[in-house]
């Protein structure tokens, strides 16, 4: 069995890369409205491990792509505004012994792009420039932690003028406070 991985970033224009060599055209499916061509070669540097979201928690992973190919560099420069919040699909495609695609693409996970960073490092072979795309699991809520405590901070978050828990911070273990009107 042979397999390769596809990365689709729904920026404007859409960036499509795959882990193989040369161009790969995949048929239309639930993600691609029409047959689309993915570009291979030196563009996609790694496809990180990710968890399937089954009763799980959202996770954050990073994709690394080349920092020199024109298509990927455009992500970090002219297309950058459309990258934030863009849907990122990671798919897997299988091939037979003659490198012909078997079945349709299996889209394994959906992420949402957050930040892009470009890093440039000196190594023995020369300078390496990569673009790191940080993505989070899509289709999940990213809510604040529940307001769990009767503290002033939590109450003011709920209602900013409510001072009912004003003195909570002053209460330590062993402190007793009198109730009722002041005498």
């Amino acid at each position, binding site marked *: 069995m042979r397999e*390769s991985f596809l990365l689709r970033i729904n920026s404007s224009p859409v960036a499509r890369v795959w882990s193989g060599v040369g161009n790969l055209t995949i048929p239309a499916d639930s993600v691609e409205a029409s047959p689309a061509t993915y570009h291979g070669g030196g563009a996609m540097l790694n496809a990180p491990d990710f968890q399937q979201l089954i009763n799980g928690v959202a996770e954050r992973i990073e994709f690394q792509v080349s920092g020199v190919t024109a298509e990927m560099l455009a992500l970090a420069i002219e297309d950058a505004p459309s990258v934030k919040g863009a849907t990122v699909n990671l798919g897997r495609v299988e091939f037979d012994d003659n*490198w012909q695609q078997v079945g349709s693409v299996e889209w394994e996970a959906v992420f949402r792009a957050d930040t892009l960073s470009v890093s440039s490092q000196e190594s023995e072979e020369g300078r390496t420039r990569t673009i790191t795309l940080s993505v989070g699991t899509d289709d999940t809520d990213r809510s604040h932690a529940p307001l769990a405590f009767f503290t002033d901070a939590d109450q003011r978050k709920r209602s900013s003028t409510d001072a009912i828990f004003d003195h909570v911070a002053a209460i330590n273990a062993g402190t007793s406070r009198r109730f009722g009107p002041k005498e």
Partner: protein
Amino acid sequence: MPTFDPSQFGIATLDFRVAGSTVSGGRSLSGIEDPVRTDGGGFVVADFGGGNMIDRTANLAWRALMAASDNGVTSIDVLLLDRRHQPVRRHGPAFTSAVVGTAALRATAMTISTNAPRKLRGGEWFSINHATWGSRAYQIATVAPNGSNFDITFRPPLREAVTDGLAVELNAPKCKMRLASAPSSAITGRLGTAAATFIEDMRLPG
């Protein structure tokens, strides 16, 4: 585009191959390791070694080529000349080969017609000059006669779809490549030698 012609340098050793990458599933309790290829077909690598840099012409031609290659950034048309293992004869007649029918992008089988002086056996290299991707080399895996034509399978997969009648170069296959490591070694002098490794240039054309 500059052309690397190994016959200019009296190359002694050469090796053309399709390279790629695999992912292993790890070594199991039974000691077996299952690899999976993830590169979608691989790319062409050409090693040339033992170039004879004895005369001025060869030296200067080599230096000019290395200057033009810009440390591997500029792509070069590399002639995969290995005439002993191509279906050609020394001082043999000129011949033509062409694609019969069509083949899609990433196909690994097609039908060709050729009147080459020697029989196709498999293992030969051929190249096709694609409209967008330029000259790309492929290695024949299997050959089956089909009437007066030949059904062949080859690696790596086609870089671009081909149409009926497109020329197939079996005489002097050519591939768009770039220097893998720079600078390549060339020792000049009375017993000078040179060596270079090229890898297929897979940057998006244009």
